[in-house]
């Protein structure tokens, strides 16, 4: 299945990624969208469709995305949508929408200010309200359970996890990090993501328009996402079947990729995803530093796609980007970007 419409990422921008910002989410989006459009010579008036990704529980307010309409410049009114998901899924909706063929330019965003809340209080609320939420287990606890399974399966060990941390953050030494005590065994502080405020915006264009806008568009040649059973105790935590199905559906196996940007907020997740995706040592993983360096929830996945697009803009041929949602990698998205000579 599929239509022949070419759709490409032609630009993207992210705000400064910080532990805490005084800027509102709308202000972050104003900056990110402007920064994504300006280099292309586009204004908000050129945008045919917008789709925003954000989460009321991160923002701490019902209908929190409504105010963000000010950032997209919805006057005159715009074709517009919103997903209660990472911006990577907003990109998915826009990608579908552009394939209908009647419009040419879309802007998608992801935004979140995690600094204003406590993840340990917020995240239990995304669990099954009857059997899991009442336990009150936080994201670190679920991640630690998965890390144990991944270690037990021989896919990772504490040293290889520390190596991921050193490479991602570009600082410290493995031995130094391993001397630290556990936050949740087997996770140490370096295995867990920072709390980050930030937003990202991405510009998509269809075929001809994309080629007129930039020299080397990053064509989306494969895009798929899949979910799994919710309860982590009913899933093989040393595997990620939804990632595998999504990668297959996105055509990952059709050719080699030079780079992969994986939304691995925890070090063991990167090792698990590399293993499931069959990425060899020749693939450069998370050169951006990944979610371990900056983790603006609801934009983290979109940033992965942005960094993968940067690789294509810079002359690369094929790149993979991944995003995830839910406890222990419940839901996974795979996007393949390609450049053409």
């Amino acid at each position, binding site marked *: 299945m599929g239509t022949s419409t070419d759709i490409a990422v032609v630009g993207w921008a992210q705000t400064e990624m910080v532990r805490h910002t005084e800027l509102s989410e709308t202000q972050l989006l104003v900056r990110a969208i402007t920064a994504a459009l300006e280099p292309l010579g586009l204004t908000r008036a050129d945008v045919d469709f917008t789709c925003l990704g954000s*989460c*009321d529980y991160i923002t701490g307010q019902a209908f929190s995305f409504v105010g963000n309409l000010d950032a997209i410049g919805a006057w005159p009114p715009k074709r517009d949508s919103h997903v209660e998901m990472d911006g990577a899924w907003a990109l998915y909706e826009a990608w579908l929408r552009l394939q209908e063929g009647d419009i040419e330019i879309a802007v998608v965003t992801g935004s979140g200010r995690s600094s204003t809340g406590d993840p340990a209080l917020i995240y239990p609320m995304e669990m099954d309200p009857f059997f899991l939420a009442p336990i009150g287990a936080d994201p670190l606890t679920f991640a630690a359970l998965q890390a144990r399974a991944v270690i037990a399966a021989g896919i990772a060990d504490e040293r290889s996890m520390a190596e991921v941390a050193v490479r991602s953050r570009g600082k410290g030494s493995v031995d130094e990090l391993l001397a630290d005590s556990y936050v949740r065994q087997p996770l140490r502080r370096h295995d867990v993501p920072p709390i980050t405020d930030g937003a990202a915006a991405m510009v998509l264009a269809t075929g001809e328009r994309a080629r007129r806008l930039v020299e080397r568009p990053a064509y989306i040649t494969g895009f798929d996402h899949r*979910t*799994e059973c919710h309860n982590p105790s009913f899933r093989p935590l040393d595997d990620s079947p939804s990632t595998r199905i999504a990668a297959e559906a996105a055509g990952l196996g059709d050719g080699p990729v030079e780079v992969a940007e994986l939304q691995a907020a925890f070090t063991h997740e990167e090792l698990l995803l590399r293993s499931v995706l069959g990425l060899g040592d020749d693939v450069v993983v998370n050169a951006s530093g990944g979610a371990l360096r900056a983790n603006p929830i609801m934009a983290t996945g979109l940033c992965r796609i942005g960094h993968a697009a940067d690789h294509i803009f810079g002359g690369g041929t094929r790149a993979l980007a991944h995003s995830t949602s839910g406890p222990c990698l419940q839901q996974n998205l795979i996007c393949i970007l390609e450049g053409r000579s």
Partner: protein
Amino acid sequence: MIPAAVVGVGQTHHKTRRLDVSFGGLVREAVFRALDDAQMTMDDIDAVVLGKAPDLFEGVMKPELYLSDALGAVGKPMFRVHTAGSVGGSTAIVAASHVQAGKHKTVLAVAFEKQSEGNAQFALGSGRGASLGAGGAFAPFIRSYIHRSGAPEHIGWKVAVKDRLNALKNPYAHLKIEDISIEKVKNSPMMWEPIRFLESCPSSDGACAAVITDEEGARGRTPAWILGTSSRSEPPSFPGRDPVRPQACLQCAQDVYAQAGITRPRQQLDMAELYVPFSWHEPMWLEAHFITEEGDGWKMVDDGSTELGGSFPVNCSGGVLSSNPIGASGLLRFAEAANQVRGVAGEHQVEGARTALAMAYGANSQYFSMWVVADRLDPFG
């Protein structure tokens, strides 16, 4: 663009409190009815799109994660939409887009709200108090409409009676007010001047589901072909914005009519399911959808045109005024419109309906979603 059609519709019995089911049980009730209607099973579904209004209504964050099992989505794409009150409509539009883009063959659109789990009024104000609630927010728009159109006050009462009479013919409707009358509406307590209690929507637990598929999937089934879909959003407030006749609504209607080949909506559409949470929205929306001239919407109500047997029936299901599980209310409009052109609307069927309009709107009259469905791909051909 690949043609897409609704081939199955299901909904729950909407009630103030559905204490008999969990969230999962509630959505499954609607999903199984939709699958039965489509003569399909979950195996036939390639992707699921879930819509609901703020997660704060029930206190479950991103409930699509927890509901992946109940919705048979394991191993499939599961997509979550949230565009305020219009979300049910957006859910249908995004699900249709999955098929129209050629990505998937058969997609399940599901929307729900289980309002009894929380307090919508509290959540609307994000727990900070000072929430006007929807009635408080919309009353000034309604007063402005009355002022501009010179509509007499009984218009609101008439809409309230009509929709509740229609609800008596809908087995799934929440409010069943057997002795509904103009007198009863008129004597009900004033909530937000000029909106009286019986001119207001209820707060419901409920879900709705629709199966959307391509031409091949529609073969041998009873399709409602999707002739056009559209959405528009505009900012919350600024001088010059007109919430009585919102620009986003006008553009959305123009767009969806253009796609469907509609130039004379009053003549070419056989009925409409419009999102009318407070009685006065019916005449307002009739005007903002070009079904009648500006200032004339109330006259269509007054002369009975919008009644089930009238020349342009509106909200034959009983509408939002009779059932309002917020996140699902939009999808209910879209699904009821589909059922009308499929000829399966039962007792509230508009005889011979071939084309229908559905709309949902949300936030401060800012988010609009619409589709036009018909019993064939070129009804005006």
